[in-house]
């Protein structure tokens, strides 16, 4: 535990000793702030315009029109920006030779992985914490429902942590930071876009696909051809699809399990990559 914290703390210091943390936080706050401001202006404009039309006015909701879109935007910004945070985590250690220090100290590879991950995760939390002024700002004028807002924060935090875990894994595979960033981008964008084919894949059931792959054997041994479709699978794999319910203020264990599983799996793979050094 102490080793993990020491590695995490050193990692966080490094972020703030280099321009990286400031650039990432600055750009992130600028983008999310602009998007927040834009939806807030649109919301207040609509309120003004329909102020004397009680039917429409009652439909206007600050949660739906300002806070919920904000989390969607933050999710997209994370997909594009967090690879820059995760790229150096392990790649840089290998390039500069400091990996030789870490791997010859009495620390386990799991402690190294968790320490690195925690360090990046803390930066993510700092980024998100700054954006918390947005709902607080609204709170001074109107009273949004803070419950769904907090759930939304939990959702983007889980999304960000998942992206970081994937980025950490990719970073363990190379000693080139650019390769690590592009690789993480690729995986993230694929996980984002994977659901786009879902509609077209609605007509294929998974069992049906297995059946044709085994030349009808599946059906003969009693496997049905009904059940979930390929489209369902693709939707469930999409990283952004799992954010939708959080944005609405719903905590569904399905999505929590998805994110947590993805994180644990990515960290496990990273640990295996680091350990493979010992049997190669």
């Amino acid at each position, binding site marked *: 535990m*102490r*080793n993990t914290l*020491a*590695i995490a*703390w*050193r990692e966080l*210091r*490094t972020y703030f*000793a*280099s321009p990286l943390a400031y650039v990432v936080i600055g750009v992130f706050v600028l983008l999310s702030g602009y998007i927040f401001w834009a939806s807030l202006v649109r919301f207040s404009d609509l309120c003004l315009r329909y102020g004397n039309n009680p039917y429409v006015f009652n439909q206007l909701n600050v949660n739906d029109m300002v806070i919920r879109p904000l989390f969607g935007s933050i999710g997209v910004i994370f997909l594009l920006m967090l690879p820059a945070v995760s790229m150096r985590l392990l790649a840089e250690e290998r390039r*500069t*030779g*400091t*990996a*030789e*220090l*870490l*791997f*010859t*100290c*009495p*620390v*386990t590879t799991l402690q190294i992985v968790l320490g690195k991950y925690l360090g990046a995760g803390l930066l993510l939390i700092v980024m998100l914490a700054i954006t918390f002024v947005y709902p607080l700002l609204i709170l001074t004028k109107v009273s949004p429902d803070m419950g769904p807002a907090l759930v939304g924060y939990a959702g983007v935090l889980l999304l960000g942590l998942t992206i970081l875990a994937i980025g950490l894994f990719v970073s363990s595979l190379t000693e080139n930071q650019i390769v690590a960033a592009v690789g993480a981008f690729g995986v993230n964008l694929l996980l984002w876009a994977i659901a786009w084919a879902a509609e077209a894949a609605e007509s294929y059931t998974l069992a049906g696909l297995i059946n044709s792959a085994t030349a009808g054997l599946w059906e003969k041994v009693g496997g049905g051809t009904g059940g979930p479709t390929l489209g369902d699978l693709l939707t469930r794999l999409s990283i952004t699809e799992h954010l939708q319910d959080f944005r609405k203020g719903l905590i569904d264990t399905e999505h929590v399990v998805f994110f947590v599983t993805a994180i644990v799996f990515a960290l496990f793979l990273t640990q295996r990559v680091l350990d493979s*050094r*010992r*049997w*190669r």
Partner: protein
Amino acid sequence: MIEVNGLTKLYGVRAAVADVTFAVRKGEVLGFLGPNGAGKTTTMRILTGFVPASSGRARVAGFDVQDDPIEVKRRIGYLPEHPPLYDEMTVRPYLEFVATIRGVPRREVKAKVDRGLERCGLTAVQGRLIALLSKGYQQRVGLAQAILHEPDVLILDEPTVGLDPSQIREIRQLIRSFGGDHTVILSTHILAEVAVTCQRVLIINEGRIAAEGTPEGLASRGERTRRIEIRLARPDGAADGLASLPGVLRVDRGEGAEKTLVIETDASRDLREEIAVRAVGQNWGLLEMRTLTPSLEDIFIRIIRGETV
């Protein structure tokens, strides 16, 4: 303290280390000597648990490197060939970080770091950014991170590379001061270094141990003749006069300075007294006499060329 048995490391089909066996006693300072690419670094990396051996065993303080890596790493201080420094950190926090992950108890971290800074002469630069330190200071920071938890075993891969002569001297003194309490293995391709710092030398070439012994033992090994250099004020006729002494094999003109002669004699006999007596008796004007010991360089070159010594 360290036992290595039949250690082999293959990279593809090439053996970086081939069937290396040696042992180091507690408190001993052992030097790995060999040309670049001889397998020194690989052997050290196996001992520190950074890379696994393909076959063979290595034990440090009774713990197997492959089976108990954490226990081994607890007892080792390691300075790799390129000091593993985080450029964006300042010296003190860097050493505190290393002390923590090397398992120094929280209460002792400050004291141990202070002592490490002092021993390596870094107290004045403890607040400086590592990236901005000179190569010599960076090397010292590297050494400080290796010694600050006071390990039983210190493994130093070319510890004096990139230092200026006075720094080299300081570092060598520091390394010597570790012998006795700590076991030290250091690698180098500089021969003078082993002669000064090590009690025992392993000459490694192409992954194999080519020779082993004390620096003096290696230097004197295989010398069938003894060479004495004398300087005379009036050397006319001296060469012939000395050649007639029993036991003298050859008399040559010395290199460099005029009026010097190099006398090669049978290794079993010490003819210095006879030479002196004759020189005085013939009134050649004896100014200087010294025994020429073959340099470690000569031995080293001969060993790695595969000549028998």
